[in-house]
């Protein structure tokens, strides 16, 4: 079920109302039923894949806790292998098969396995990672094995974060299912406000920009440099508003029921460095890779060259996590390279006191923010392009077509990208509003500051937000980009 569907507008109030009306001991059952229904709205049969994962990790958790010595490691390996095999089968089989076929062809031999023809279970990468984090934490002794199968199932299937995160940690979420959540006016209204903000990002900005991005990236040969720059900047905001909008709706709907999900995005394009960008972008995934891949590889407790390799590997794997396509691997590799260069530059700056002082200058800070945004946007070209050849075509034509400035932003040019001037103006105004709110967040929580305003102003703001979503939202029930991962 999509958050931006009519179905969800019926589902959410019913599930929430019944949740609060039920005695605490039955609430987990209700949430599990509701979450199963939510998941089955996509492809019902895939619920069995999810159940299989849950059963494997449930058994693994208990057995790991009881076992000692090398047996613990073996059990963890079995659990991780089960999760990764499932992910590999559904997500990477065709990719691997196609690459082996190409490789075999290049070497003059034949490799002829038929590609599998089925859809990827929705959100598989998210819930396998969430499930794996549970068994790893049990192995590490930070999490007690969950004896209640229903609660563990709910940890993996909790509907707000089931299909696109945040990828929660067991030690944060599992105990919350045992807490009694009474109806709390402030918390409920706060959750609803967060949801409304998420809908604003998704419906008013992301889905509006999607039309233009899809048009240009589907037919790159029909366009030139200015179009690519505009479409890529549009994609930078589309993907941010799409995914952070989803996370806001997920966190808001969980908050209404009394659950605290982790922050997943934090004003990402205000980052003054690539490392800071990764502290703000998809936080639940980047910390997952940090805790369960980068640190076990040795993290920064190893030699500098090994640390660099670890960083690069982590980013390549992170790229591959996003999709079975070389475009994602290149995207990850680019970010890995950015980070390595940044670390080198930082080391150089520390040795030069004058450069160190410059780094604290406000104008220089702004320049860094703009540079990081430009680098991140450049990398988005690979993330969004349908193939490596498309991406290379776009990159190689970025500087083509700038000779006539008068037509760069002409109506005809904009409309050739599938969007009207009016639609583009609405999108730009909405991005302006988004950035204004994000700048205000530097001074503290905007929701808290709104709460302190007189009732009339508060209501006017809520009303304005609701009417903006109603009058300027795009109601195409477009899927969230990260669902495909």
């Amino acid at each position, binding site marked *: 079920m999509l958050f931006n569907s*009519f179905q969800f507008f019926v589902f959410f109030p019913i599930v929430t109302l019944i949740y*609060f009306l039920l005695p605490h001991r039955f609430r987990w059952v209700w949430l599990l039923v509701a979450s199963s229904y939510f998941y089955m709205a996509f492809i019902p049969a895939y619920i069995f894949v999810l159940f299989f994962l849950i059963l494997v990790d449930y058994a693994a958790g208990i057995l790991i806790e009881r076992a000692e010595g090398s047996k613990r490691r073996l059990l963890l390996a079995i659990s991780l292998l089960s999760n990764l095999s499932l992910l590999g089968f559904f997500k990477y089989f065709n990719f691997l098969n196609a690459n082996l076929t190409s490789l075999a062809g290049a070497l003059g031999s034949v490799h002829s396995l038929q590609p599998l023809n089925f859809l990827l279970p929705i959100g598989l990468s998210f819930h396998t990672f969430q499930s794996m984090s549970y068994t790893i934490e049990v192995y590490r002794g930070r999490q007690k094995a969950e004896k209640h199968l229903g609660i563990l199932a709910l940890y993996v299937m909790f509907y707000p974060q089931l299909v696109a995160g945040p990828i929660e940690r067991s030690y944060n979420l599992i105990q919350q299912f045992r807490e009694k959540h009474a*109806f709390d*006016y402030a918390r*409920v*209204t706060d959750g*609803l406000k967060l949801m409304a903000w998420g809908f604003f990002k998704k419906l008013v900005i992301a889905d509006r920009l999607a039309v233009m991005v899809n048009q240009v990236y589907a037919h790159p040969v029909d366009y030139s440099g200015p179009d690519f720059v505009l479409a890529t900047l549009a994609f930078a905001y589309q993907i941010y508003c799409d995914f952070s909008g989803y996370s806001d709706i997920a966190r808001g709907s969980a908050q209404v029921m009394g659950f605290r999900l982790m922050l997943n995005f934090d004003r990402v394009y205000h980052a003054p460095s690539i490392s800071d960008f990764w502290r703000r972008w998809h936080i639940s995934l980047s910390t997952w890779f940090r805790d369960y891949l980068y640190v076990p590889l040795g993290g920064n407790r190893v030699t500098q060259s090994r640390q660099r390799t670890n960083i690069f590997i982590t980013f390549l794997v992170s790229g591959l996590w996003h999709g079975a396509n070389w475009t994602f691997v290149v995207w990850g590799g680019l970010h890995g390279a950015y980070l390595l260069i940044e670390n080198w530059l930082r080391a150089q700056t520390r040795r030069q006191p004058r450069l160190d002082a410059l780094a604290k200058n406000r104008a220089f800070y702004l320049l860094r923010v703009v540079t990081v945004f430009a680098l991140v946007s450049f990398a988005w070209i690979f993330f969004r392009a349908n193939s490596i050849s498309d991406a290379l075509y776009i990159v190689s034509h970025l500087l083509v077509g700038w000779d006539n400035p008068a037509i760069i932003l002409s109506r005809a040019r904009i409309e050739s990208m599938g969007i009207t001037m*009016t639609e583009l103006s609405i999108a730009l105004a909405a991005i302006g509003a988004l950035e204004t709110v994000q700048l205000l967040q530097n001074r503290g929580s905007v929701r808290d500051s709104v709460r302190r305003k007189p009732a009339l102003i508060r*209501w006017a703001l*809520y*009303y304005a937000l*609701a*009417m903006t979503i*109603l*009058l*300027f*939202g795009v*109601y195409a029930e477009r899927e969230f980009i990260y669902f495909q991962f």
Partner: protein
Amino acid sequence: MARFVTKFSFFLLLVFGSSIAILKTTDIGDNDGYLAVSIDKQRALQAARSPKIIFIGGSNLAFGLDSARVEQVLQMPVVNMGLHGGLGLRYMLDEVKPFVRAGDMIVVIPEYQQFYNRLMDGEGPLIDVLYLYPNARAYLEPPQLNQLLKKFPEYVQKKFQSFVFGVIQRQDSVYYRKAFNAYGDMVAHLSRQSSDVSGEPLFRAKRLDSDADAILVLNEFAAFVRTREARAFFDFPSIPQAHFRANAAIIQDLDRRLTRELQMPILSRPEENALPLNLFYDSVYHLNAQGRTIRTEKIISDVARASIARTR
């Protein structure tokens, strides 16, 4: 919780009230607008004596039929109920049911979209018609209410944006009530110059989800018509040949489904109704004067043949 429910309900009412206010200030109540002709068509339907011919469909019929010519050749009164695809197939059929009498011939020619993505349950234009013609509310069924609820935000938005950004119909538009004649045919466009519709897609939706219910509703209608000792026929709309070729797989699949499942005679094959691009006025379903004449003659011959013989 009571405090929350009270305040939240008030807030929802405020937003809903504002939506209604927006609709009121735009053209929803426009008695001279295109959709207001629905009232005239209903009156024509009530007044027509039986046996008569009733044409049911969307704007392909409004723009593409010369009812006077049909009446003249087939010697039966004709009412053209074709108006707008957004009213949905279910409503189009339901609004005619009370007026079906023994000996009547009903020709259903819906646009292809009626078989996909629940268009059959109606969209924004149905809200307009329900407002303009309150009697129509009696025909509403639960799936339509569900669909209209879904479409309500989009509908309010469309009206608001038309109002604010001036996308309201141009002064020289033919989309108004008086553009129709007494039979229910659009005639204002006949003397106008056609525009190029080659760039317009036949299906705007990126994904087409087939509706088995559309055929079910047609079959229920056919059964109803038989109980009234009348006859119902189905036919495909006219579209440009290029659009037919571009969507041949989808159209042929629909044709196969209809041939297999539809319980009313089909007058012709889809490809027979594909016409040259220069016969279209301003949309892939709207014929110009020349196209309308060709289409009308074909319908007359198909209906005449069907009324005396078993169709394919």
